[in-house]
Structure formats: structure tokens, C-alpha cells
């Protein structure tokens, strides 16, 4: 390693609230166990990239006893699907995941009621998984596709259901801010390892260790993807991204001027998921989208301090700022030695 390249480490912690802030939050969903033992799930949401459609397919499959690939998820449409409010605030898995779970339970109850009649057993002993339905402690068993057929053709019932999930939040007191802004909180922490070139001021982030409580992780790989993506957005915020205006005119109006992290800038991210399930909701899941990027920038600034003894308190830590801070540090220590 070159003499001018110095390494260091820093850490930071964080917390975050899940779903809409200091206001009631609600989401609705409809479900139908469909022909062929498949399912239709309608809810006012579509993918913004976080993997919500996959999470909802997993939830529906788990609740209904079919496979995720047998679930068709309706796209977000204010005239064709129930309201699920907005795609933000780290609320998708928590709010819509739980709404879908409840809609599926409702639809399944309808199906199970008819199949219990068919087999002349108690509804409570019925169970379904991976496309099969059976009655525990008996030899009754059949494919879901047959169960749907019987439910419709013999008993005249379409197994549909609806669900709603509410997260009870209150506004803040206008004087002291007291209130219950969320019912579920997540916590996280990250360690950053950096290499700073004292000759050029360039900072490279080599490693990030990220540990986040997400409640029950429905799709751990998806959670990891959110952590990695959040970390890299925060790397941009910490080191290079800087929207600039002069007298109101933007001077960084293209990706040539507005610098984003590329494949050469990103650290290796090692993630660890902590599961502290939410006791107030059916799934126990909480969220990860936004909290993933909160501790990264301070962990990086603390690591830069560890590496070269200068603290950047004004983001981003550009090479120019690092060099200026190093000059300042040198000037101060020279001053001291003269005194």
C-alpha cells in the first residue's frame, strides 16, 4: 500500500419508524382462490423495485397453501383495486403484506368451510400447503384445484376474501411533540472501513458491515438487496453527490456533473439480519427500505477520522474538503509546535 493511503474504521447506529408518520395508516386488499388452485390478489400497489410483488406472492402462497408462482398480483389502479395508499415510508411489507395476509385468510376460510362440509369434518383441522389441502388426522387429501372446483360447482361459492390492516398512530402534540408516531420501530448499525489517500484526498469505502432489525424477514435476499442498495445511495451522499445551484440555476444538470456511485465506487457489504418480530401484526415483519441508509454516512465520516484524524461535518466529503481539512490540521499542529 502506498504511504499516502491510510485506512480506518468507524461505526454508527440508527433507528426508524415503520409506515406513515404520526398519522393513521391503512391498507386494503382483495383475494380470490382461483381455478386450477391459483390465486388472484388485488391491492393498490405495484413494484417500485423493492421486491414487494414477490413478498406479497410469498405471503399469499403461505396463507392459502399454494405456490408463490401461482399467485397473480393486480397492479395498482385507483379504479380497479382497493386502496393501499402510497409506495413509500418503509410501509409496503408492513401495511400491504399484512392486508394481503388478512384477505387471504378470509378467502381461505370460505374455501375451508365448504371443504369441511364435503368431508364432513371440523373446519379447524383443515390445512393447505404447496397446492394440497388435507384434514389433519384423517386420510382426506386433495389438490387445491379440485377443492376450488368443488367449492364452486357443488356448493356454489366463489372463495373470495378481503382484508384491511391498520397501524394505529397519533399526531404529535404541537407544544412538546409527544405522541405515538408509529407502532413499530426498527434499529440498525453499520461499521465502515475506508482508505483515504492523503495526497489526493480521495476516499474509498472498502467494506460496510450492516446489521439491521427488520422484524420477520419475509425474503432475506430481498432484505439484503435493500441494505446493499441503501448503503450505496448513502455512499453517494457521503462522498460525491452534490446538487448545486448558483442564484437558483442548477449547475449539476446531468450525470456528467452530478456524480453517482458506479461499480468502481461501491464497498463490499456484509449484512446480518436481526429479527425482532412485530407483535401487533399477523406477519411480524417490519421493514428495511429507508433505515438501511441512515447509519452509513456517519459511519463513513467516523472512519475517515479514524484513518487521518480529520472530521468532515459538512457532507459530502469530497477530495477538496479532505485536503483542506488536512491542511488545516497541519497548520494547527505547526502552530502548536511554534508555541
Amino acid at each position: 500500500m502506498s504511504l499516502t493511503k491510510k485506512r480506518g474504521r468507524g461505526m454508527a447506529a440508527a433507528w426508524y419508524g415503520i409506515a406513515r408518520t404520526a398519522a393513521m395508516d391503512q391498507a386494503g386488499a382483495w383475494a380470490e382462490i382461483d381455478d386450477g388452485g391459483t390465486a388472484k390478489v388485488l391491492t393498490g400497489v405495484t413494484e417500485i423495485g423493492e421486491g414487494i410483488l414477490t413478498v406479497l406472492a410469498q405471503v399469499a402462497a403461505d396463507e392459502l397453501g399454494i405456490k408463490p408462482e401461482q399467485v397473480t398480483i393486480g397492479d395498482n389502479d385507483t379504479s380497479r383495486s382497493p386502496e393501499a395508499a402510497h409506495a413509500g415510508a418503509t410501509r409496503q411489507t408492513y401495511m400491504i403484506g399484512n392486508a394481503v395476509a388478512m384477505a387471504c385468510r378470509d378467502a381461505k376460510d370460505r374455501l375451508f368451510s365448504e371443504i369441511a362440509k364435503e368431508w364432513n369434518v371440523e373446519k379447524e383441522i383443515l390445512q393447505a400447503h404447496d397446492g394440497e389441502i388435507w384434514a389433519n388426522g384423517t386420510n382426506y387429501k386433495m389438490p387445491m384445484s379440485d377443492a376450488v372446483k368443488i367449492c364452486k360447482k357443488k356448493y356454489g361459492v366463489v372463495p373470495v376474501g378481503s382484508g384491511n390492516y391498520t397501524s394505529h398512530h397519533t399526531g404529535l402534540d404541537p407544544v412538546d411533540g409527544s405522541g405515538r408516531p408509529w407502532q413499530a420501530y426498527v434499529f440498525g448499525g453499520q461499521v465502515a472501513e475506508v482508505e483515504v489517500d492523503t495526497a489526493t484526498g480521495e476516499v474509498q469505502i472498502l467494506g460496510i458491515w450492516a446489521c439491521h432489525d427488520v422484524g420477520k424477514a419475509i425474503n432475506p435476499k430481498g432484505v439484503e438487496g435493500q441494505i446493499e442498495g441503501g448503503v450505496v445511495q448513502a455512499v453517494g451522499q457521503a462522498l460525491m453527490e452534490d446538487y448545486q445551484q448558483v442564484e437558483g440555476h442548477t449547475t449539476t444538470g446531468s450525470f456528467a456533473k452530478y456524480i453517482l456511485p458506479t461499480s468502481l465506487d461501491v464497498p463490499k457489504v456484509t449484512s446480518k439480519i436481526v429479527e425482532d418480530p412485530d407483535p401487533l401484526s399477523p406477519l411480524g415483519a417490519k421493514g428495511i427500505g429507508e433505515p438501511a441508509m441512515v447509519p452509513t454516512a456517519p459511519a463513513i465520516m467516523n472512519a475517515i477520522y479514524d484513518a487521518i484524524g480529520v472530521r468532515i461535518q459538512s457532507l459530502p466529503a469530497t477530495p477538496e474538503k479532505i485536503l483542506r481539512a488536512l491542511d488545516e490540521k497541519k497548520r494547527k499542529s505547526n502552530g502548536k509546535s511554534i508555541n
Partner: protein
Amino acid sequence: MHKLKINLEVNGRKINKEVNSHYRLLDFLREDLDLTGSKEGCGAGECGTCSVFVDGKLVKSCLMPVAKASGKKIETIEHQGTPDNLSTLQKAFYLTGASQCGFCIPGMVMAATSTLRNNPDANIEEIKEEMGGNICRCTGYQKIFDAVELARDVISGKLDPKLLEQYSKPKDSYLGANVKRIDAPSKVTGRLKYAADMKMPNMLHMQVFRSTRPHAKIKKLDLTKAKQVPGVETIVTCDDVPGIDNFGVFIEDQPVLARDKVRYVGEAIAAVAADTLEAAKEAISKIEIEYEDLPALFDSEEALKDKILIHEHYKTNLVKHIPIRKGNVEEGFAKADLIVEEKFSTQAVEHAYLEPMAGVGYVDSDGTLVIVSPSQNITHHRHMMAKIMNLPIHKVRFIMSPVGGGFGGKEDMIYQGMLALCAMKTRLPVKYVMTREEDIISTAKRHPSRTTYKIGLTKEGKITAVQIKMIADGGAYGCSTEGVMRKAAILGAGPYRIDNLQMDTMGVYTNNTPSGAFRSFGALQTEFATESILDICAEKLKMDPFELRRKNMFVAGDLTHTKQKLNSASIGTVLNELETLANWEKGAPNSRGQIRKDLNSNDNRESCFLGARLNDKSRLSGGVK
């Protein structure tokens, strides 16, 4: 419009066609051939979403005039595989979860294909460098690298291709299982249609005339010459709004099109819908405007003095102040052995979702106004649109198209109102796609912030009092400023038990680009200050930073800063797990970087140096495999 004849081969098909001579290869592929898998993320060769092969070489098709493609063989993402017959690389992307929003992914697959074609043994450093021209805003690249390495090893025969089909079926439950993303096949093949990929019969194209002044009265707006441009169907201004003309996520203070004055550079003033994009652009260039400049505000603290008002009727530039009070800070500081006071600031940041804002508006057969756009909040948009268009709420229908990255940036209803006005006026479908530059200057950013911080601690490291004040620049319109201030205030002091707290966050209007919702919504700004100052305190107290946090962290039963009782608080577990995961060497943060023993583990990437590709001797000698 000038035309020229070209002969070329696209995805194995011979094509002999007359094309618009000003078209780039990307326009030709998307507009004339409907090959919409190649995306336009920036139009300037910076992002790589439009990557294709031209005679086998990776080219950014937004930089190539279509005339130059004549006589060449073009290969696009549509030629790489189909959802039921994926290429090896596409299967690897699917397996590793390398696609999130998916907008960069067709370009990424092309760049990865090129990487492995050029260098089948590419190591990770070579892969990173070869793919350095393709930006991804969602994934952090890690799962993309994983996919390319996996595909490399399968193609070279080191790994069994069956690995790509692997799927460990969970026994009892799909909850907690790594089910492969159900939307991935449509994304890795470029088949998924985003708003900009939509076409409808008789569709018009919309363009927007924008302010070049930060704060000015509109003295005169002359549309005469613009209306005469052949192909122009309508030009709308604020005078065309039939209902109550304002929108905003928290405060509805923004008109669909500037009314009487402009408050920032890039603000929409008029919108043209024409039968071609070219006609719409020409009409924009013929709109004449006279401004009377007003004194402008660019600094948030200056704005708080209210000497100049951005929104006169509010009588103040303060958008929102959120106070939080707990205990008594004077008493708390009196008990402290150590008091630290510092200042912190954060910059404005662009969302840089790879999919620029885009949408289509039309009026349905039953008179329902339909807006298809990558909106992150169709529920609220429908409410606001009904009011703006003076329609019953069920006569407004919002459809959320696949979002090519949002991060909060697509929560504002910044262009849908213009689409609605044009569609209602013409009764024809209208499409609008922003250029990257237009998107950057006109849409909301992350709030830049300045924070002053005072913290008191005992010599044992227990926090006795915290006083925080953050001022954030909200820009010209309210957008999500109120909510951002609220979250910054509630969470800002961190997951720590603080008996005496005084927290104030303030968002203000200026004549800068509006600030709005952005992933981590204010908490990023204030928690940055807290986690930085705690490091400073840990050094002064000669205490390990984990230890300092453990001394103060929330435990179940504690009251939060808003006096809410926590039923559980996993921060203790998180800190323990993190310390182990990172193999952290204990010690105070006293710049011991050069002597610490926990550096350089295998969990780091290599330090980056340019020229990794040049290590390949065959390439040095100019040989291409």
C-alpha cells in the same frame, strides 16, 4: 422532417427503412421498431441504460446517429433471451436477485454479456471496470457482480448449469424463503413496459415551457406563434385549470402551471401537446414571455427573516417548525461533565432514479380521466386531481406503471396535472417523457440542512441533555417538507434514552429547486449529526463508540423522545451482532486507524486502481478474443 434511407440488420432481421434523419439509433429502435427494452436514462451516454451491440461492440445507442448504423448489425436486449428461455447471464441475474426496479437491467445485461464475450475469464476487478459505464441506483451493484461471476463460471464450465435453476423449496412456509423475484424475467429480458414505453393510437406528445428565472412576475405570455406550428393540438396554461389549482404532498401550495409568478428555475409555465415530439418542441421554442424579476432568496437562514416572501399569502417563509420537548435541558446540561457543541450540514441530493419522469393521460370511453404514471402515491394524486380538474373522484383513475426507481422522488404530482389538462382538452391520449436535464432541474431534491448541536454527558458517558436545531431548505414549494421536518425531529436524537431534550426542525421556502420526499426522509440529516457527535464525545471520554451507545441506548419500557413507551428495542442485540460481524477492535475513536488490528479482512473489496482491464495481456497487444 428530413428523412433518410437506411439498411441494417436488427436482431437478425434485415431492415430497409426510411427514418427521421435526426434520430439517434435509440430513437429508431424505440420509436420505429418498438424495441423498448433499450431505455433512455440520460440521453448523454452517462448511464448505459440504452446499451446495444453494433457489429458486436457494446455501444450506447443514445450517442449514435441512426445514419451511422446503416450497414451494421444491431443486437438489442430483445435478442438475448425470452422470459421462458433466458440466456445464461439472464438466468444468473434472476437467481442472484440482481434486478430491483429493473430500468438499468437491460443495459446491465448487455454490458455484462459484452464483458464476458471480451474476456471470458474476467476477474471481479475487470468485471467492475468493464461495467463502470452502467449506472444502477437500486441494487448497490453487489448482486449484479454476483450474477456476472456466476454466469462466467457456468459458461466456462467451472460450475454446473443446473446451479442456475436451483431453488431450495421451503418445507413448511414461504415466509423467510429466498423466493426468486417474480418480476425478474420480465426485467432481465427488457419486456416490462414502463410509462415511456407506452404507445396509444393518435397519441400526442407533450412538452413543457419552463421558467428561466428564480423569482419573477410573469408580465406577458404570448402563445400566438407557438399555436401556429403545424401539428400543435393545444397549449395549456394556468388559465385552463377548471378546479382548485393547487397540489402538494403535505401543503397544497403548488399550481399545475405557474400562476402570475414563477418561484424557481425550471417551474412549468405552459404545456404544448402536438402530434409529434418535434412539433411540440418547436412550439415551445416559439413561446414568448416577459418577466419582471423579483428579489430572490437562496439561503434558508436568510429566508427565515421574511424580508422577501416567496408565497405572499402565507406571510412567512417558514413551512413547518416541529418542536419536541422532554425534561429540562438547562438542568440536564448543569449535570454534565462534558458539553460538546458542533455544527453539521448536509447537501441537496438528486434521486437519480434511472427512469426519468414519464406518463400518459387519456379520457376513457365513459369520460373518466386516466393517468398512467410511475406515481408513488396514486391514492393522494387521485384526490388532488379530482379537485384540480373539478371532476367527481371516481371519474379520475390513476394507474401506477412499473416504477423505474422512485426513492420518494415520484411522490409529487409534478407533471400529471399538465397531462390531464391536455388530455381533457384534446380528448386524445397524451404522453410526456422528461429529459434527464429537465427532470434534474424541475423535480424535488433531498433537503439540504444545517444543524447546530449541543450535548451534555457525565464522565461515565451517560447523556444528560441534548439540544438540536436543524434548518432545512425546502425550496420553492412545500412538497413533503412538513413530513420531512417531523421525521427529522422525532428520530433525530437517535435510539438513545435522553431525559432532557430540546429539538427543533424548521423547513423554509427559498427560490431553490423544491426539496421533497427522499428515502430516509429527514432522519438521515439529523441522525448523521447525532452519530457524528457521539463519536466526538466517545473520543473525549476515551470510550469505545459501541460502549458509549450501549450506555445510552433504548431498552424495552423506555420512553421515546415523543414519550411513547417502547414495548421492545432491538438496538442492544443489533449492536452486539454488529460488533461480532465486523470483528470490531475495541477502543476510543482517537484516529488509531494505523495501528488497529481489525483492518484488511476478506470482507473488504480491493482498493480500486484504474486499468484492471489492462492486466489482460491479450488486450494490451490489441487482441480481441
